[in-house]
């Protein structure tokens, strides 16, 4: 039976979709990409993700998988031969899952605050982001990637947030590279990998999108 893989996504603004695109590229999986207009969600999206009505959704032979980290693990388990995302040792796997979960808990919220809040609230969010990035730098240590010699689960979980850094830095008037040079060095290493560079949105476009969202929501 021919395999059918579809990714419902929103190309240049969803960090979560970017994770899936990198994973599919790393695994060499051929798939059909369907761009969603989040202001006018398709019937297919609503049918495949009736609970959250969000992208990304991976549809494999007609069966949907939702939630980006769930999708990443599904991709890793379904196409196991090439480029393992998770290590084979249970303890290392637990550490990878822990850090991916940490990123999900921290970054989206902090990012939003940095872009939209002012004064004290914004300063607190900036500090928290830097502290989080420093914690991740510690976890990375001397390794080229969080996954070791190659890209892994945690690398894929984090690197798409890099596309928002220009927006964070401009809105927050600070430099992430100055505070966390090792983290930025890691992102540069990731960007040298084709599956990453082809899957990540252009930070300028993302910044433009953030400004647009702020305007639409009446935020200065």
């Amino acid at each position, binding site marked *: 039976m021919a395999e059918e893989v579809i990714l419902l996504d929103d190309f240049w603004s969803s960090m979560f979709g970017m994770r899936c695109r990198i994973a599919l590229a790393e695994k060499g999986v051929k798939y059909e990409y369907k761009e969603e207009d989040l202001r006018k969600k398709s019937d297919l999206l609503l049918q495949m993700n009736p609970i959250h009505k969000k992208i990304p959704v991976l549809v494999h032979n007609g069966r949907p998988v939702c*939630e980006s980290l769930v999708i990443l*693990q599904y991709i890793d388990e*379904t196409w196991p031969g090439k480029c393992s995302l998770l290590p084979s040792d249970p*303890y290392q796997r*637990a550490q990878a899952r*822990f850090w991916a979960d940490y990123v999900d808990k921290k970054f989206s919220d902090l990012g939003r605050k940095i872009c939209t809040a002012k004064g004290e609230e914004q300063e607190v969010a900036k500090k928290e982001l830097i502290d989080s990035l420093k914690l991740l730098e510690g976890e990375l240590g001397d390794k080229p990637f969080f996954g070791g010699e190659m890209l892994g689960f945690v690398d894929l979980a984090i690197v798409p947030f890099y596309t928002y850094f220009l927006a964070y830095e401009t809105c927050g008037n600070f430099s992430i590279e100055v505070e966390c040079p090792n983290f930025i060095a890691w992102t540069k290493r990731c960007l040298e990998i084709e599956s990453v560079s082809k899957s990540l949105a252009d930070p300028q476009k993302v910044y433009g999108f953030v400004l647009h969202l702020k305007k639409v929501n009446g935020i200065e």
Partner: protein
Amino acid sequence: MGEELKLFGSWGSPFSRRIEIALKIKGVEYEYLEEDIFHNKSALLLKYNPVHKKVPVLVHNSKPIAESQVILEYIDETWNDNPILPRDPYKRAMARFWAKFIDEKCVPTIWKSFMSGGPEREKAHEEACELLSTLEGELKGKKFFGGETVGFVDIVASFISHWVGPVQEAAGVDVLTEDKFPMLYKWAEEFKNCPVIKENLPPRDKILAFFKARLEMLTSSYKNRV
């Protein structure tokens, strides 16, 4: 070398209880260390979970693992008897999806429906009922979320079977009732009656007393604000 397994937990924490359920299902021996999470977290807990400083933390041969769903998967991958997650990748993805749904949506909304006041409480209550209805739909006539046997989603959902009862009694609010959610209610009863689960239920009276006190404190502070 003998295996050394420690669980740092708290009697009142649904997240901590999940790990005990999983370890009992696997028939694995462990040392339990009770943490005073409100007033006096131990130096060991802070050492083993410096990022979140929370329970549960499982320490296996001196290596710590934190975050309950991460710990559950670790347990399942380390001890292979009585699997908690299915083998099939699609079924595993579904289990992970529903576990996430419970933790990211159901748990915070249900807590809010008990712990907040006024219009905020009403809104949360309505949302909680919608979420429980969605969750009930996932049961699809099965005995457990895991099918014939208890699985990952059942263990994560133990918050609903074990905590919602006493807390809704303390709050005087009906969230999970037999007539509103007959299948979920039935699931909760089946789940609590499983031999491994029955022997390991959290102390209902203690939970009831704790939340009654907590709610009295919150209600009086809310009344003072209004």
